[in-house]
């Protein structure tokens, strides 16, 4: 504190300490004017909403606008109603902080009390420009709600959910999103959720187009570990949501966006016709954040009249993270919302404190700098609720006992954090799996029979390749709820991965018994049958999937693989083609058609299919081997070498990759490299008689006849009847000196 005086004092003496010297400075006698002091405050803090067409009810862009509202501005700022900013200063350092300084508030008061002078136009800052259209320019894709909805003129606030299906047939990464709510004045805030499986639309087949009421919603995340990663939160002063570099989010074909809007009746019927503008980037994410939640909804049981009901939760971090953002959430009874972290060394770090919670002014808060929390840190949520009559937000009059729920008369206590795992050791599994597991174990600590948490935990264990543990966890789920078809299916997948495929088949069967429409279970059984040479059964199972889901591209390619195994190449070809018509990126179909072309001696079309397959699935060494084969058959050796080098990188312990690479090196005239690769192949698989023979040939060609002889003899020790080795040895003998 280096200044002791109120700016409000026109003739005050400011005492300024400069380098230890006490210097007295006569304060400016110049009056407070709009142009010099007030416009900069308004432009920085107010006009993002208060401009013509903006979310605010009136504009504050011009001197006339501000003068007309002078008294209003004093009241709204002095009470800190405006700008809307709930977090307590000093308890988390947030980007885009909108809290006015006491000095600014005093300046506004003085400006109004001294007659609201305009001042010298030369002092006026440039007037900000607000676009009536998309602030980031034309979006790459605009999604609109199917049917505009009508908000009634009066009544309590309304929470409506609209589904916006993603219409493209390609995956895109989203670097920015902008929401145009249609009528910004009635939209308090909006959240966008990604529904990977369109589950919510399927759950509301008749009403999703018109908007479905509800404050919170649960969507089915599907079977792959793909946690929500971003806060897609909109409020009137943040029209465009730009993600940090390296952190775009993803939309796949078949995904839905769900727009969850908090709407406030305006006094006249309003049409709500929201649009979402999406801005793409070609670069996939280089960093993978995830959202994690603290809550204790089962403890939310607030007696009527109680004004200090506490709900706590605690989550221990299994990895180092950077906290990027935070989203505290309660309904109307929330009063005092606190979140902090206790570091392993005992130090307390505040994450946020909201002393006077107000659902109308809720927000996601992003930290100015990421908050680093080391592994072992305990994150705490401490919420206090007021269910008394004195809480004016109380929706129940008289107050009643309130529990957790989706309606506005129910309550919630959620704390969401966006975390980015950091300091991950190389070659370790996705650290988000550990965060997910810790989160679910925390849920289970509170609610041991929480089947959703158990299911998610099991899925995380499966993704961590911890199949034996996953089997146990899935078994726990089906013990609690034998009607959980997806858990039976997950159990099947885990059992299959432990090698117990017979038990896996039983689990898949059980899933189908419980829910015959769960095609995933039939599909998985079909896959397993295919892998265990029950080819006819696999064919039947894939056909059963297609009967229910004729557009399932993977089932078409699975069926094709079964047909291929039975030697029915033509039928396989047509099923692969059907798969590709539905999903031009289907890797199995691309690979299958590539293999078929190879087997028919058509390496050029084979290479075309396989190039696409590699593009789609760059980390699959087998596809790269196939592509290398296609190149090699076309004498494109350097291309083949490139693919095999990649395959070797991906699967360094696969002897066959080294052997193939050796063959192609040899064909391309790189004898020494060929020898090295073949030696490596034999190091990995020493009992390969063919390999020893091939190494002998390479050594002989290189003029190392002694070594070559040893190699041929090595081959014959393994396989005494090895024809080529015998012949080569004989040939070597005749040429021997």
């Amino acid at each position, binding site marked *: 504190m280096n200044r002791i005086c109120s700016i409000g004092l026109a003739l005050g003496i400011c005492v300024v300490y400069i380098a230890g010297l006490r210097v007295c400075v006569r304060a400016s006698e110049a009056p407070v004017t709009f142009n010099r002091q007030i416009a900069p405050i308004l432009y920085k803090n107010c006009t993002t909403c208060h401009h013509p067409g903006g979310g605010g009810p009136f504009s504050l862009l011009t001197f*006339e606008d501000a003068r007309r509202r002078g008294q209003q501005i004093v009241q*709204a700022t002095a*009470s800190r109603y405006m700008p809307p900013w709930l977090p307590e200063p000093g308890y988390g350092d947030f980007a885009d902080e909108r809290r006015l300084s006491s000095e600014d508030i005093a300046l506004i008061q003085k400006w109004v009390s001294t007659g609201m002078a305009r001042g010298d136009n030369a002092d006026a800052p440039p007037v900000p420009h607000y676009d009536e259209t998309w602030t980031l320019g034309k979006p790459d894709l605009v999604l609109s709600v199917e049917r505009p909805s009508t908000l009634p*003129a*009066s009544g309590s606030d309304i929470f409506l959910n609209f589904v916006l299906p993603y219409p493209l047939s390609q995956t895109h990464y989203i670097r920015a999103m902008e929401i145009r709510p249609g009528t910004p004045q009635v939209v308090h805030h909006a959240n966008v959720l990604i529904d990977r499986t369109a589950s919510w639309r399927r759950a509301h087949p008749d009403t999703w187009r018109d908007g479905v009421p509800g404050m919170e919603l649960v969507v089915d995340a599907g079977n792959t570990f793909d946690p929500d990663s971003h806060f897609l939160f909109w409020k009137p002063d943040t029209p465009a949501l730009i993600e940090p570099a390296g952190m775009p989010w993803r939309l796949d074909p078949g995904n839905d966006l769900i727009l969850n809007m908090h709407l406030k009746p305006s006094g006249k019927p309003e049409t709500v016709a929201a649009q979402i503008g999406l801005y793409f980037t070609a670069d996939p994410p280089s960093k993978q954040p995830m959202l994690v939640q603290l809550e204790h909804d089962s403890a939310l049981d607030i007696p009527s009249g109680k004004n200090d009901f506490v709900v706590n939760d605690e989550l221990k971090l299994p990895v180092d993270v950077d906290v990027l953002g935070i989203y505290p959430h309660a309904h*109307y009874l929330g009063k005092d919302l606190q979140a902090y972290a206790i570091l392993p060394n005992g130090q307390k770090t505040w994450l946020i404190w909201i002393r006077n919670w107000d659902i*109308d002014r809720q927000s996601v808060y992003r930290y100015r700098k990421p908050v680093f929390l080391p592994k072992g840190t305990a994150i705490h949520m401490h919420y206090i609720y007021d269910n008394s009559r004195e809480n*004016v937000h109380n929706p129940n*009059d008289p107050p009643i006992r309130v529990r957790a729920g989706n309606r506005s008369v129910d309550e919630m206590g959620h704390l969401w954090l966006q975390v980015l795992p950091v300091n991950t050791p190389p070659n370790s599994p996705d650290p988000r799996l550990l965060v997910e597991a810790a989160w679910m174990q925390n849920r289970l600590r509170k609610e041991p029979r929480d089947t959703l948490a158990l299911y998610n935990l099991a899925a995380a264990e499966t993704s961590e390749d911890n199949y034996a543990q996953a089997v146990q966890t899935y078994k726990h789920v089906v013990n609690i709820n034998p009607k959980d078809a997806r858990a039976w299916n997950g159990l099947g997948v885990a059992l299959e991965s432990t090698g117990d495929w017979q038990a896996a088949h039983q689990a898949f069967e059980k899933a189908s018994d419980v829910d015959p429409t769960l095609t995933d279970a039939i599909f998985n059984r079909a896959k397993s049958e295919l892998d265990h040479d029950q080819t006819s059964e696999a064919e039947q199972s894939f056909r059963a999937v297609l009967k229910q889901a004729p557009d399932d591209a993977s089932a078409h390619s699975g069926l094709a693989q079964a047909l291929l195994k039975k030697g029915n190449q033509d039928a396989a070809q047509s099923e692969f083609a059907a798969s590709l018509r539905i999903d031009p990126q289907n890797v199995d179909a691309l690979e299958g058609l590539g293999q078929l072309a190879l087997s028919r001696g058509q390496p050029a079309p084979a290479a075309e299919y396989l190039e696409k397959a590699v593009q789609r699935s760059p980390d699959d060494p087998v596809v790269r081997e196939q592509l290398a084969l296609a190149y090699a058959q076309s004498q494109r050796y350097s291309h083949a070498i490139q693919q095999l080098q990649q395959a070797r990188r991906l699967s360094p312990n696969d002897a066959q990759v080294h052997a193939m690479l050796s063959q192609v090196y040899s064909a391309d005239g790189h004898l020494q490299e060929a020898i090295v690769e073949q030696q490596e192949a034999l190091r990995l698989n020493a009992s390969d008689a063919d390999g020893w023979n091939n190494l002998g040939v390479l050594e002989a060609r290189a003029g190392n006849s002694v070594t070559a002889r040893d190699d041929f003899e090595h081959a014959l020790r393994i396989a005494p009847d090895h024809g080529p080795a015998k012949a080569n040895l004989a040939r070597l003998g005749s040429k021997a000196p």
Partner: protein
Amino acid sequence: MSLIAGRSHAPWYFAAQSFAVLLVLHCSVFAATAPHGVDLDGHPVMLDKSTAPAIVLFFTAPDCPIANRYEPEMLRLEQEFGASGIEFWWVYPNPDDTAAVIRRHQAQFPGSTHVIRDTEQSLVHAAHATVTPEAVIFIPHDGALREVYRGRVDDRYIAFGQERPKAMRHELENAIAAVLAKHSVPQPGGPPLGCSIVPLGIRSQ
């Protein structure tokens, strides 16, 4: 039965203004010596000539969100009590709210057809209104108007950031009913909340 407010209350100011003010206990009565506003065609509206049992003024502004949110409620009250002869007036006190602005507002928020532009803010001063939305009940009496209620419509908005999901006490409605029943008029339980009425000197260019 007295129509005079039975209790003193903080928002009741009885300071003398530049026009004739008579203080009678806890209510103000002023002689209508001038037109108190004009209609949308510019014709004077003389409230003191009214023979209605009571006149309800609703101070409003097109750019005040809280005032706008009360449009449906005020229309409901007009429909409910109009049959009993109570007159309702939508009063636009702010400079710059011209007839054209008000017509546009009326088209958006279908309100009462009884509209007064308080061009000289004589109604603002007579009623001591400070914000929109604010409601006043006058009782015409011997060519003068006696104010028996002034303040908020109901208790939904307590303070900035303190809003009930719905009103618990419909204070204006209860007051009108009391006037009709010739009971003492209950007063609002808290100050009106909304947008400050813009002083006359402040006009846009």
